[in-house]
């Protein structure tokens, strides 16, 4: 095969597994019994051509090259007779991966063959809407749009403290919201109302942290009628006005 032939094929591969599938198909070999030496050799040839063409070779191609080489060397190792039955075929994991990839590659082709809106079939264009919509109704908005909006403002300020929000911080907000919800519903709660026996350690910690944060912000007040009595919490000063 000449370099020219490689060149034509290069950009049509969706990744190393795709290249491997192509080689298996081209050589008309059984995917369940891949001649590893032959396929590895051809795979390396492709990799070398890509390199010589200074193509940006994704690390994944090299990773699979290493895997192939490793399998090849394992296939060459002699195995003793009693080991043989237990030993799995060194190719097994790779074959499994290839079969799975092949399944989804075909599923993708299946999707592509469907009647795609805007490509094969069309619905009616809606240029304008003469009637205003209802303010209380929302279409379901994707979280992606929300995060994207947050990223936009954060990048604008260039401030690191804004960017740095972790799962812990958001989980704490969850607990804060739950507690305020409960207080709005019931007016007053005791400390123990907020803690359930079934709570995980993590949830207990978040509950305490949330109460501390709410007290620090003075969104809630804590009372104790008698010494050592139940600690009661209320929303401070009401939420209106």
């Amino acid at each position, binding site marked *: 095969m000449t370099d020219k032939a490689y060149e034509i094929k290069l950009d049509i591969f969706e990744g190393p597994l795709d290249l491997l599938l192509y080689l298996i198909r081209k050589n008309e070999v059984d995917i369940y019994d891949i001649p590893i030496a032959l396929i590895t050799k051809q795979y390396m040839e492709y990799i070398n051509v890509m390199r010589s063409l200074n193509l940006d070779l994704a690390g994944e191609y090299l990773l699979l090259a290493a895997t192939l080489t490793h399998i090849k060397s394992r296939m060459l190792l002699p195995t003793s007779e009693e080991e043989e039955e237990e030993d799995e075929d060194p190719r097994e994991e790779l074959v499994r991966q290839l079969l799975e990839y092949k399944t989804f590659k075909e599923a993708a082709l299946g999707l592509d063959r469907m009647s795609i809106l805007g490509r094969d079939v069309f619905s009616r*264009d809606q240029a304008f809407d003469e009637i205003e919509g209802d303010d209380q109704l929302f279409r379901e908005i*994707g979280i992606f749009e929300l995060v994207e909006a947050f990223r936009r*403002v954060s990048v604008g300020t260039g401030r690191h403290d804004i960017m740095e929000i972790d799962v812990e911080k958001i989980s704490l907000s*969850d607990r804060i919201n739950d507690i305020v919800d409960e207080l709005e519903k019931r007016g007053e709660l005791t400390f123990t109302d907020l803690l359930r026996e079934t709570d995980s350690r993590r949830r207990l910690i978040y509950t305490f942290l949330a109460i501390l944060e709410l007290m620090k*912000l003075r969104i809630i007040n804590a009372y104790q009628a008698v010494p050592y009595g139940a600690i009661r919490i209320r929303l401070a000063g009401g939420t209106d006005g």
Partner: protein
Amino acid sequence: MDNLKAVIEALIFVSDTPVTVAVIEGILEDVTKKELSSTVDDLIREYKERGGGIFLKEIAGGYQFRTGETLTPWVRKLKGQKPMDLSPAAMETLAVIAYRQPVMKSEIEKVRGVDVSGLLRGLLEKNLVRIMGRKNVPGRPIIYGTTRKFLETFGLKALSDLPTLREFKELEG
């Protein structure tokens, strides 16, 4: 052409403005204007005789499907239910509240760099944002957080389902 009527119908259907005979002629090259006109007339008659919910009408020198005039009340009712979108500015304000809550207005403004009073009012009215309380310091600033409806609108089980910016950045590859 066998399916001339079907093609014309599809063309008029997908267009958001009335379709003229000249436009159809440009698409179906080997059909005469006369043939086109008579086919469109057939279609108009068919829809009229059928007496369904939609009719083919001649409008502004072209043709367009329109809903029957007697059906306007129902159509209006449907259109009135059309869900609203949030403007990018409202979305950004909402995002800051969602991620930074419980948060004061001054903090939101520091991040967004502009006054957010109007946007906040809008989000409160839409019940996506709520007042969680007032901080007991001079000026008694209001503290904001998100609502249950916020979670529903975004299909979230809890706020902790929100991705962090670090996770989001990973998508840039």
